């Protein structure tokens, strides 16, 4: 272990940040893993299964979460963000703001007594608002660290000064309402940005009816709807009447490949949509799916075979088309108006449920982060990296990997995260 004593900062606790941290920790570096949410896991934790193996996402992610938590060289800082950076490569001084959890991480045993008693219901962000959680909550079932957090914007005591029921219920005295946000400094030699993506919100595309037509959902909502640990316990129901949908339409390139919106391609939607259509069919063999696409982009290992399997064995029909708009009939069924690019005809199709394959966007906070770090963004607002040195940002000593620098799938994010770890190690060797 030749790197003992040198420290590295990894920003973002999704699969990319986790892989970078694990590799660096195995090489012998001390890693500080910064996560803004109460638990690490990121977007992958929200997915039901993953293409092209249809492995359950959390089942293959959970061991890595536990490895991170157990590794003596990794220190996880949740509810944290970077607010200041000074110094230069080899010697960065970073100021971290850690928001108060109001729960002592070393005391909470995640028994759930507090959430059972907490009187305040809050839309559950992890489940894309499809269900409510309490103001004291576990971010998600398999989350690491597996301890509660209090949502200070909704907690009755923290907003109005009365309640403290959780404190009275907790068998471990783990609740601490006096906890304050705190700032602390770290000295690190290199920084890896692995902040991931935000999904596109299709509300502004009014012609597609998202938010107006209840049976139009986004792909991330669909992941939660079909997931065993999601709000419907894995029973696929459409929002309007809780009926099981039999005909599902998937619309591609929502918010992407659109010069009026985001011009870029999100790279992963053709594949994740095929996966979602397969899963729907696995849940109910009567399900038939229609995928409305522009180009089918499936270049990764086994991807073409996956799509072929989808159309042969899972009742999936791929329609090269341009969708004009979605209307709704009196039973709440969405009606899709589209131009079939195979024949040039204008057509209509009534389905039970529409899933919008929303694009992968830069994180909302990325402008602020880039400013703090002093790195540039590209014209699409992703972290700018260098051609043929794809993990280098514009600032020496700061690397980027995964969706922070552009949309990509999990294997690429993992390979890049390892790559960023190798680059960081190379940098520290020189300093």
């Amino acid at each position, binding site marked *: *272990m*030749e790197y003992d004593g040198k420290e590295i900062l990894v920003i973002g606790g999704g699969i990319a940040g986790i892989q970078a941290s694990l590799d660096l920790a195995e*090489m*012998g570096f001390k890693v500080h893993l910064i996560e803004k949410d109460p638990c690490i896991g990121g977007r992958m934790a929200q997915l039901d299964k993953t293409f092209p*193996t249809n492995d*359950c996402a959390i*089942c*293959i992610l*959970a*061991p890595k*979460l*536990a490895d991170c938590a*157990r590794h003596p060289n990794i220190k996880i800082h949740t509810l944290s963000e970077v607010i200041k950076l000074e110094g230069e490569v080899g010697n960065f001084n970073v100021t971290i703001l850690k928001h108060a959890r109001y729960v002592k991480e070393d005391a909470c*045993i*995640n028994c759930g007594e507090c959430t059972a008693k907490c009187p305040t219901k809050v839309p559950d962000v992890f489940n894309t608002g499809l269900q409510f959680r309490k103001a004291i909550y576990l971010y998600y*079932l*398999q989350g*690491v660290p*597996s301890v509660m957090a209090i949502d200070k914007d909704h907690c009755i005591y923290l907003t109005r000064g009365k309640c403290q029921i959780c404190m009275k219920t907790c068998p471990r005295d783990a609740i601490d309402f006096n906890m304050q946000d705190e700032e602390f400094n770290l000295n690190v030699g290199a920084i890896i940005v692995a902040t991931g993506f935000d999904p596109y919100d299709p509300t502004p595309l009014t012609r597609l009816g998202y938010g107006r037509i209840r049976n139009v959902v986004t792909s991330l909502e669909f992941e939660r709807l079909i997931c*065993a*640990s999601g709000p419907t*316990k*894995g029973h696929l129901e459409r929002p309007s009447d809780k009926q099981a949908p039999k005909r599902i339409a998937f619309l591609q390139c929502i918010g992407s490949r659109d010069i009026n919106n985001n*011009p*870029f*391609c999100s*790279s992963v939607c053709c594949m994740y949509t095929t996966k979602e259509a397969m899963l729907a069919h696995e849940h109910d063999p009567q399900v038939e799916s229609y995928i409305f696409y522009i*180009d*089918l*982009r499936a*270049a990764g*290992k*086994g*991807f*073409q*075979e996956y799509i072929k399997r989808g159309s042969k064995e899972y009742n999936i029909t791929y329609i090269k088309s341009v969708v004009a708009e979605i209307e709704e009939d009196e039973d709440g069924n969405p009606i899709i108006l589209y131009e079939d*690019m*195979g*024949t*040039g005809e204008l057509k209509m199709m009534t389905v039970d449920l529409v899933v919008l394959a929303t694009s992968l966007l830069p994180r909302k906070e990325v402008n602020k982060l880039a400013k703090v770090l002093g790195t540039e963004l*590209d014209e699409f607002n*992703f972290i700018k990296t260098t*051609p*043929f040195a*794809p993990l280098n940002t514009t600032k020496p000593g700061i690397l980027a990997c995964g969706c922070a620098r*552009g949309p*990509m799938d*999990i*294997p*690429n994010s*993992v*390979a*890049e995260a*390892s*790559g960023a770890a*190798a*680059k960081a*190690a*190379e940098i520290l*060797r020189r300093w």
Partner: protein
Amino acid sequence: MSNKEVRIGVFVCHCGTNIGGVIDCPALTEYARTLPHVVFAQDNLYTCSEAGLAQIKKGIEEYNLNRVIVASCSPRTHEPLFRATCQEAGVNPYYFHFVNIRDQCSWVHMNEPEKATEKAKDLIRMGVARAFYLQALEKNQVDIDPRALVIGGGIAGMTVALNLANRGFPVKLIERKDRLGGLLNDLNKVFPTLDDATKLLEIKDQVLEHKNITVFTSTMIKDVEGYVGNYNITITKGDEEEQFKVGAIIIATGAEVLEPEGLFGYDGKKVITQLQLEKILKEKTLDAKNVVMIQCTGARTDERPYCSGICCMVALKNAQLIKELNPDAQITILYRDILTPGTEYEKFYRDTRAKGILFLKYSPDRPPYVEEDHVRVLNQFIQKEVQIPADLVVLSTPLVAYEDSKNLAQLLKVPREANGFFLEAHVKLRPVDFATDGVFICGCAHWPKDINDTISQALGAASRASTILAHRTLEVEGAVARVNEELCVGCGICMKLCPYDAIARTEDGLAHVREVVCKGCGLCGASCPEQAITILHFTNDQILAQIKVLMEGE
């Protein structure tokens, strides 16, 4: 068997609804409590969560458990985690037994929940029977040689070598051609920057001059022996042979461009490949006004079902370059799906369209037809056949695996997938590892990919290799084969069968297992006619106990 009382704990996992939605987990837990030597049983929503693992440790501590059974998803993903948890709580990891009630019960019998629950009970009863006979095993320590072998001197191999060398690891870089650079040597310009390919080859000098890198060109691997941390490599250059030791091996052997014999009238003159076009553009000898490019030539077919990923960008790049040389050129790209994922490539596609290059989608059922001075193709949108004038037809052919990559695969004992590309340990979360420890993969030998992805993946492979090379010693599997020399007759069957080359002959002619190489696969044990080989952790006692309680029923 030690005389110590056997105290078994059983943890039944709901895995959310993956298991709990089908199988009656509380009933299973109740059942486990009735089995011999089980002193504690509990069901958890997610046994692998931090809370679930804490419950295992608590159970070990409070009930003084010395055997632990988890009934859950699959040992493939979770056995290491539960073993480590046992070890942390002071129980030898080989006292852990995995009962697979997800893959083997709730998933395969999801429509028969009662029978699935009964089967899960059988499996738990068998697990408890085996756990009684489990033995504590120790993991061997092996020394790690800090040097790395990189096979392939293209951009992938050079990137791996430089990263490792800059970090102080000595690297041996082997290239079978007479110079470094690989496919890049044959390219004109690279997308999306349109830089000269030679610019990317400047890295060659750094590699050649680096004090930690030894470059061998015109060199082949002849033999590989050994195991993670300790490989003995024999290379040949002409008649000369050389041997050295390394701790890790990275495959970066690349791929080659398919030559489309018999497709679309390919003749290498008027119907050429994109690679041949690169040469023409490099030499500035292009003489064609009407150019038609045909995408997916020899790709996405029954014979070669995959998409090569880079050919669309190659075509777009070359179309732009032709247009730059000759603004009057008419270029048409016949495609099936335009593959320009991500931010930069999609922009490049839009720019290409804006430059007046035409795109026409064709269907594989009605492929284009190349004739003397034009290409005929069905325009699907208007449902009419059109004729496109062509003085030059350029075929976009996929990258294909080198035919002889199977030899390398055999030498290194690593698998390839159906198209001949090397197959990693897990396509999602272990994209550059092999199941065999100590060997890694990157670049186009793994799968066709562009230069940027090749570079980041190469760095990824360097990282993974260094997680081994940075250690002085490594722990290897304790569940290995062991030969009873009293019974062995030296027939040699096991030596021939062992896929890891782990069994050697002693001076007395008997079989001897090199335990650090052995993976405990059991092939030798199952085949030994004298039953002289025991597979530790899968002993006859353990397996027969399982069969016995299965036959006995509840």
